[in-house]
């Protein structure tokens, strides 16, 4: 089956950030997103993100350029004050032309 090489950007963040995060991702060029509730523990401890609603894990399939822009934006606006983890992975996507 024909697949296209894309970047999968995953951002795990405090639930309060969900709305603004999705907004940012879309504005930077993501055509859609997948959101799941997440729970875990990291360097900031379990508590920081523990406003009601735990954490969210937002994933988008985008081109490498958009992926880089997303990471840059997250780095500039969120890392210093919020409990956020972000990473990208190389993925082979079916019907990938929809996302590039």
């Amino acid at each position, binding site marked *: 089956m024909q697949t296209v090489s894309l970047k999968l950007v995953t951002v795990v963040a*405090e639930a*309060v*950030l969900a709305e*603004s995060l999705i907004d940012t991702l879309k504005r930077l060029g993501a055509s859609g997103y997948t959101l799941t509730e997440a729970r875990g523990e990291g360097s900031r401890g379990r*508590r*920081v993100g*523990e*406003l*009601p609603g735990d954490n969210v894990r937002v994933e988008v399939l985008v081109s490498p350029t958009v992926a880089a822009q997303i990471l840059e934006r997250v780095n500039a606006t969120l890392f210093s*004050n*919020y409990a956020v983890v972000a990473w990208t992975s190389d993925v082979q996507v079916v019907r990938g032309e929809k996302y590039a």
Partner: protein
Amino acid sequence: MTEVLRTNLLSPIVLAFALGVLTRLVRSEFQLPKDVYSALSIYLLFALGLKGGVELSHASYAAIVGPAFVTVLLGCLTPVTSYLVLRHLGRFDDADAAAIAAHYGSVSAVTFIAAQTFVTSMGAEPEGFMPTLLTLLESPGIHIALAIGVLKVGGGRPVRETLHEILTARTMVLLVGGLVVGFLMGEKGWHAVSPFFDGGFKGALTIFLLEMGIVAADRLGDLRKVGLFLLGFGIGMPLVHGALGAAFGILSGLSVGGATVLAAMAASASYIAAPPAARMSLPTANPTYYLTASLAITFPFNVVVGIPVYYQIARALHGGG
């Protein structure tokens, strides 16, 4: 006083709260499913709004004006006193002081309900329009405190967004919506739904308090992190605001029951509407401070000791004035 305290300590809601705390202390796995907690809070808030709306439909306009005015006044005053005390006596930085003040300026609906239940059980039925006052107190406190913080620290996000978030939050929608529905349906409509909304109310509140005990106990470990000042603040500030609320209430013509409930509102700290608003507007403020202070210190203090104390103050003021 001891008699009043004892009555309160042996009330179902305080006992359920204590059981919740105990549940955590013995490290039980038990906790209320999130959806049940959510459903109970919807039920409680909507019931409160409906009942208040029905009462409002036959309340006299003149009787509400005075109490409504002092309620808004309290809503503007408590965030400022909280901020000043935290900033200057507690030496918190601007963001932390403002974020904590946002919690103490706003109101905890559960504390309000606990106060209503308490004074009713003491035979001092509060005015029917108290839920209306609750909605007036919910939002100014958060805004004033966050505005102080954002002005001092800079950044944050547009006021419009915070305002939208607070005004459309579950608490406000259910309370204000309930008030309107209750007002429109009147006594006749209430009669039809009261077996569900009135009959189950105290039972639902009891289960809710059980969960609140668990949530509060989860934060007990953080008490060591927040320091002695915040511990004192979490008890002292409610007493000051509560006394002020009781005095304002009596002056504005409220009954002892009504003044006690107003005092409990002024003394309470929000832990539902304020945390996300503070997190978004003042990201540098440490959530451990405001969540621990409002949930693990002030909420239990008010429910167990504060409300009976405000009742005594209101009684003394009423008798004296």
